[in-house]
């Protein structure tokens, strides 16, 4: 592990981060989920966020995807300050999130899921005005996106309910890629998957990086983290306590930072 050849990160650190969040604080009633947390990720970079359960990882991702409006703090996209008032704002800024629950609609087909909320209309003028969708075109684009990422799904017309966990995860990622032109956020993408399926998802993440997207990924699996990421941010008790280049740290150090045995 840790010797992958893609980490020429010197050039990238000079870039402005694709997305950056500074001093984010947020409370749910009495629970302070985020305490002045910081995070940033650049184009072509894969960054892991690690931390114990309840450390605030998911909440931080939700702040970046506009689902949670933080009490305090600033968000920058390409160095420009921005504020999200809803998930739609984040989607418009090119940020796509794959949630832990994947947000796939069980009763709909794979293609329909990929394009839900962004259906392409028929090119025929009248049909288009009537809101008739162009299924054939969407189907082809979905096939293209999936084969781009090396994802194999037997039937795109079957409802996603019948698909395996890995297939569902890959489908959700493909959807994010198709519409996120800047940042892709993945919350525990391999948590529920077996070894083989995890490997498939990780290779998809690798593909995304080579397309120049910025990727944020939450994971509990140190092996996966060290295999795929360029850098790691550790969260503890709602704060981001340390950031490390993946090739300059070790799993032992990261675990120490997570538990608080080593202080950032």
């Amino acid at each position: 592990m840790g010797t992958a050849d893609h980490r020429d990160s010197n050039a990238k650190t000079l870039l402005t981060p694709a997305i950056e969040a500074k001093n984010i604080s947020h409370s749910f009633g009495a629970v302070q989920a985020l305490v002045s947390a910081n995070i940033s990720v650049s184009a072509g970079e894969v960054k892991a966020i690690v931390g114990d359960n309840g450390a605030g990882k998911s909440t931080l991702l939700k702040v970046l995807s506009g689902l949670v409006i933080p009490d305090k703090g600033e968000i920058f996209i390409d160095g420009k300050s921005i504020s999200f008032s809803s998930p739609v704002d984040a989607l418009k800024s090119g940020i796509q999130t794959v949630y832990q629950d994947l947000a796939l609609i069980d009763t709909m087909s794979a293609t329909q899921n990929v394009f839900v909320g962004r259906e392409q209309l028929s090119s025929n003028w009248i049909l288009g005005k009537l809101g008739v969708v162009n299924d054939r075109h969407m189907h082809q684009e979905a096939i293209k996106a999936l084969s781009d990422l090396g994802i194999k799904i037997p039937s795109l017309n079957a409802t996603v309910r019948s698909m395996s966990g890995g297939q569902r995860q890959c489908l959700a990622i493909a959807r994010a890629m198709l519409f996120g032109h800047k940042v892709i956020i993945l919350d525990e993408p391999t948590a529920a998957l077996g070894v083989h399926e995890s490997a498939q998802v990780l290779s998809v993440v690798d593909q995304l990086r080579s397309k120049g997207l910025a990727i944020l990924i939450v994971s509990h699996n140190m092996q996966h983290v060290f295999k795929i990421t360029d850098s790691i941010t550790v969260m503890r008790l709602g704060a981001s306590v340390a950031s490390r280049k993946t090739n300059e740290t070790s799993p032992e150090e990261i675990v120490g930072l997570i538990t608080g045995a080593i202080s950032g």
Partner: protein
Amino acid sequence: MSKNLTQLASHDHKMTSVEKMKKSLSGPGGTIVLGLAIIIGTSALWVGKMTFTSFNVYLILSYLAIPLIIGIFASFSLLAGVVDLSIGAMVALSAVIFAFCCINGINEWISALIAILICLGFGAINGVAIVVFGANPIAATLGSLVGLRGLARIISNNAPATGSSSTDAIPLMVTGLNDFTESQVSFMPVLFIIALALVFVTQGIISMTRGGRHIRAVGGDITAARRAGLPTERIKFLSLLASSFGASIGGILYVGKLGSAPVTLGTNMEFTIYAALMIGGYSILRGGVGNPMGGFLGILIIAVFANLVDNKGLDIRAADIFVGFLLLVIVYLDIRRGGDAFE
């Protein structure tokens, strides 16, 4: 469109048409068609040739036309995952308001408009309770069911007496409307032709348009739909308005057909219509499933059975036994095919 679908399917599997037919017959569509075949067969055997006389077919179609219109509009809210139990009461309310206005000398068209608008208003109240406050749809629309039925009776009791002493119905013959509801093209009632056209249009909306996709998405998984940036609240609200609209149209048409507005109109109709729609593949427990063609077949099955019961001179409530039984069988088959089982 069907050509489109064929090509899409052949992208994935090189399915032969026989294979495809087998597949669709083993699905919900097959069950419904089979159910329809069985019930028509039973009728043919039991009642005999009479089943197929054009007059009998006319009776069946005429019986189902208005419920079909109501059901198709109500199917929007089922699809969006909100059950609207108030449709039966809304039918009565619309009928009573329409008749009340007409009797008080208001122009028929304006009366109809008033009835529709008031029903939409109550549909909006359902919408506010369910969408804005997040009330359980079953509980909230049950409240409307009780309340609107009460309101229909109040209005009916305050209608000026016109000859007949009963307060249970407002007698009213709107000649034009009556002619319209009774008119037919050969053995097909015009109302049925309209209802069928509505089925096809709705089928197109649901399966081919962006709006239809969005309704199905909201019903299928509201969290996912919200995250995809869909206006989930607005979609649910509009779907509730659609079901109120259908019910109000149904009420007005019934006045035309019956020549009066009975306050008991549409009693239990919500249950019959939802049972029929469930037989046709919709679900009252989750949205996102079912299509108008299936819904039509479900309502047709029940209409054919009601006709059978009628022809044999049995009590019409015997049809309820059949509806209940068939509902259980269909839902059970759906579970066997991987539908949502309880626990």
